[in-house]
């Protein structure tokens, strides 16, 4: 354990010194873990590859941000991978899912539809963004990320019951807010 910590401290200093072979060593040691986390969150191989690349390029550019006195490099990299992967999922869902959610039901011209859809997207985004973080993250993973509540619980490290109740509360609040604005059901 101590030897591994020694290695991580040396790896950090060698990265700071511009030792490209240190980055290759870091990738060989931690790459599968980082990719595994990224794949489990994004469920997309191309996205997991992007996240893995982002994480290791960040390590190469900012190696001294990692402090070996505060924890292990493997944990730091997996945490970074998780954050980047969740960011990726949020971006993708905002881009792909919201327009589908906002399909208008009435008859309208193409221009009207576009305007209405755009307006609804903005309202839903605003309502989601206004949720407390504990509710927002479950909604984003469950609905925008397409997870089951069990998967959301596992990813966020929450009990399944807590996850289910947070999802219910979040949806109720979103529905109430959208109704009050004349957008929701």
């Amino acid at each position, binding site marked *: 354990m101590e030897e591994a*910590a020694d290695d991580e401290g040396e790896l950090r*200093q060698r990265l700071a010194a511009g030792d490209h072979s240190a980055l*290759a060593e870091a*990738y060989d040691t931690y790459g599968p873990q980082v990719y595994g986390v990224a*794949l489990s969150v994004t469920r997309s*191989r191309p996205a997991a590859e992007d996240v893995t690349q982002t994480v290791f*390029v960040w390590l190469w550019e900012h190696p001294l941000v990692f402090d070996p006195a505060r924890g292990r490099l493997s944990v730091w990299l997996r945490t970074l991978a998780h954050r980047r992967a969740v960011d990726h999922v949020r971006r993708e869902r905002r881009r792909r899912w919201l327009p589908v959610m906002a399909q208008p039901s009435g008859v309208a011209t193409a221009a009207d539809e576009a305007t209405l859809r755009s307006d609804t997207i903005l309202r839903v985004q605003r309502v989601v963004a206004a949720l407390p973080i504990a509710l927002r993250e479950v909604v984003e993973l469950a609905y925008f990320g397409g997870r089951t509540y069990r998967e959301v619980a596992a990813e966020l490290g929450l009990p399944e019951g807590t996850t289910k109740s947070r999802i219910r509360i979040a949806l109720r609040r979103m529905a109430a807010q959208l109704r009050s604005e004349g957008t929701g059901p």
Partner: protein
Amino acid sequence: MTEPPANLRRQVLHAAHRQRAPAPPAVLALLRPYAQQVAQLERLLVATLSPDDWTTPLPHHGDVTGVVTHLADNDALVAEDLGLVRDESPGPAAVATASPAQRWRHQTEVLLTELSRRDVAELDRTVRLAGRGQPQRPLRDALVQRTLETWVHANDIRQALHQPGVAPPADHVRLIVDLTVRLLPLALALTRPRAGALPADRGARLVLSGPGGGAWTFALEPGGIVRSVAVVVHAAAADLCHLVANRRSPEGFPCTVEGDAGLARDLLHAAATLACD
């Protein structure tokens, strides 16, 4: 666990290379040993020492606080001569309250990070070496001296912790002996009581055993040419590192000598003056 695709490794390394160029090989050859010694000392300071250990009396520089302060002061000679100041450097108030360890860590991080971006020509730039008279030498020599001194003081601190000293790795030993051989002619001229008594074309040979060992032949006078060898000194490479670090006395230094015994003694005494203390 799902393995990443085989080509991802190459993509990641190329993307990283595009964002930040690696240090030039000649620079890295001197930065890597320094980085390794810095990591060793950092581990001792950050993870191993208890608050009480900092005031444990030591033969050199009083205690651990004194050792780290001394090391940071000597590192600063190089940092100052290269003008290495970063925007995020602590301001005057932060400097005043920074512990010796924080100051040392910050300074080594600046040195490693900034030098990793410098061109290989930078290695020829003249800076002050630590030690007697602070001689002006190329940066390539100063970096080896930083590696040597960081190793020496890490061993000083291990002494405070009642831990055994650690020998430098073989590639560090070779760099240290190379530097010693480059500096010895000048040190000999400054310390040898019978200066000028030897013809300029005579040299000495060091034959060192153990990790990092080998044979080094060098002129006895600065800029001299070796046409014949006046003395051969056989010793352990690690012992020579301790000698030039002033952690072993030239008196009774374990070695065997072929040739001029008086000259060998002068060489050993000259080597002991190369220390940074």
